[in-house]
């Protein structure tokens, strides 16, 4: 089997904050309304969390489930476990109205770390980072493309489409230039 590779081969930029491309990370898009019978058990079986509240991300160690919209969840798990998790979801929700897809290779993931990591995102997204609740998953715009991010472990994790990974690394690098810190 081919080894999975991330979009930018782990590119790193050291500015006033550190920008690192990470991954590959396993990701499953699960579309279902929260009242679909068996949904919570299916999510628990796949990543070990319950169903997150609106805009929240629930974690069980390195596995997580994020609320993306009223009928969409993002499951995060080790890349090698996606196939097994998908099969489990398909079995648990058989006959229900839902959709589960492996999107691991359609995404790029970045870590932005350091004391001023927030400033890198503040310059690029029209989102009020101060209004983010603990554990919140915020979907927004990163310069000209869609992105979703959450805070934790001394920085932020940012998920974007893989096709724009180079563009996003570029704007993150620009935003993190030494000397361009916000006052």
């Amino acid at each position, binding site marked *: 089997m081919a080894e999975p590779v991330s979009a930018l081969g782990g590119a790193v930029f050291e500015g006033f904050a550190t920008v690192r491309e990470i991954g590959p990370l396993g990701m499953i898009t699960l579309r279902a309304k929260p009242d679909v019978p068996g949904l919570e058990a299916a999510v628990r079986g796949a990543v070990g969390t319950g169903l997150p509240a609106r805009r929240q991300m629930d974690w069980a160690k390195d596995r997580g489930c994020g609320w*993306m*919209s009223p009928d*969409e969840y993002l499951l995060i798990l080790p890349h090698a476990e996606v196939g097994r998790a998908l099969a489990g979801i398909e079995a648990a929700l058989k006959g229900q109205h839902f959709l589960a897809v492996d999107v691991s290779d359609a995404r790029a993931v970045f870590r932005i770390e350091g004391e001023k990591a927030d400033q890198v995102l503040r310059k690029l997204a*029209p989102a*009020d980072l101060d209004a983010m609740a603990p554990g919140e998953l*915020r*979907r*927004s*715009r990163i310069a000209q493309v*869609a992105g979703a991010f959450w805070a934790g472990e001394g920085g932020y994790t940012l998920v974007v489409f893989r096709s724009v990974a180079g563009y996003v690394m570029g704007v993150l690098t620009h935003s993190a230039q030494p000397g361009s810190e916000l006052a």
Partner: protein
Amino acid sequence: MLILECPYCGVKAEETELQPGGEAHLKRFGPGSSPEDFEAYMFARKNPKGVHFERWRHAYGCGKWFLAARCTATLEVFGTYPAQSPEPPADLVNKIKAKRPEWKGWK
């Protein structure tokens, strides 16, 4: 700057996170309708200076369409509500009436 609160995900979304969808509460006239009705549905839109009901999509957020009432002159936002609303909620209409006594209603 226009900020609309998305009724689905609750984010106070800045305008560039949204996609505008034009006038809200249009009645569709499709096959079988008169040419006049179809033309009006297709092309005729309100363009008031003042209270306006609009469709917006939280394009860079949760992706859902929702409806908003705002003033086109001052950008004051009166409220937002789910797209599955055949007409503006009564409490929103009352709120606008109280603020803009000269307003003639949403239809």
